[in-house]
């Protein structure tokens, strides 16, 4: 699938609105300011997709959330070990209790993910429903590749909408990835009025 600049801009914009809403939700949950960078919309070959997100063997903690409704997608929130520990601590959970920490993170992921896809769906006029989140700690490559495999289906190409958030005054930054299915990319673009190549 070839995407033109206008389509990539539109996808970046919708991701900006999704992550902006999510950052606000997280901010009120933590009582701290959450900063957001300008998201990236990346159309990549599968082989390049994992490297674009990070080093495949790095340890990562992730919250993975399926999206269903008018399109299939996967949202992956990726924390490095330090940031994962910080979030747990901010929520009053002892980071060394890995089970409790994962459960706290999955609650954060739930709130972030639902507000992200909710705002996105509203903007594109699509009904997007999040599924319950799954939290895990593993190799970054294994997490991202599995999310791509479960969503990207038979296409050789992957579209990633990648935002980075930072909690002000705390050692905490993390990425939010939105991975739509190939069919889902078309539906998102149609919802934005960008279906036709411009």
């Amino acid at each position, binding site marked *: 699938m070839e995407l033109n600049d206008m389509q990539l801009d539109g996808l970046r914009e919708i991701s900006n609105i999704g992550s902006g809403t999510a950052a606000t939700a997280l901010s009120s949950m933590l009582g701290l300011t959450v900063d957001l960078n300008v998201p990236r919309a990346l159309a990549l070959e599968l082989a390049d997709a994992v490297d674009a997100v990070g080093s495949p063997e790095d340890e990562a903690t992730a919250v993975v959330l399926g999206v269903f409704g008018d399109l299939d997608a996967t949202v992956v929130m990726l924390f490095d070990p330090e940031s994962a520990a910080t979030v747990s601590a901010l929520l009053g959970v002892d980071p060394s209790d890995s089970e409790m920490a994962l459960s706290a993170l999955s609650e954060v992921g739930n709130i972030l993910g639902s507000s992200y896809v909710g705002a996105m769906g509203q903007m594109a006029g699509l009904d997007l429903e999040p599924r319950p989140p799954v939290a895990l700690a593993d*190799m970054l490559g294994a997490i991202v590749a599995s999310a*791509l495999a479960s969503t990207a289906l038979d296409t050789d190409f992957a579209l990633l909408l990648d935002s980075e958030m930072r909690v002000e005054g705390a050692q905490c930054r993390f990425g939010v990835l939105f991975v739509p299915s190939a069919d889902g990319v078309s539906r998102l673009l149609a919802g934005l009025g960008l279906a036709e190549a411009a």
Partner: protein
Amino acid sequence: MADLMARMAEIAVSRHEADVLVALGLGSCIGVALLDRASLTAGLAHVVLPESREGSAAVPGKFAAKSRLSAVLVGGAQMFATGASNSLDIGRRNEQAVRTALAVAGIPITVAVTGGSTGRTMRVHLESGIVTCKQAGSVEETIAARGVTTLRQAA
């Protein structure tokens, strides 16, 4: 020594003793290594989906003498279940598809470190013929040496 990366849906092949074929962070994907027992030649495919073009056993075609080949499989984990119908058990279905393709090609599987819910990194050392597997948060282990399994619990 050169690390030749087999990234998602890629195949790395070498017959140089200084090379190491590497698949980093295999989750539901499967690393399929084929080793020639009589020479230094080896290949490593990073299979993503059970029915993708890349998964259709493209590697055996790169070798002359199939009867000398043996395979080592790593990966095929169920990292998470997102509830989407097509995400169910991709790891297991990948393993089945690879096993079927290898059986059709007549290539025996020496050892398979597959399933579970953990990511793995796989390395094929051309010089020694050793295949290693490292699970997330664990140490690198030798699982096969020149077509002979070194794992007691090997499937």
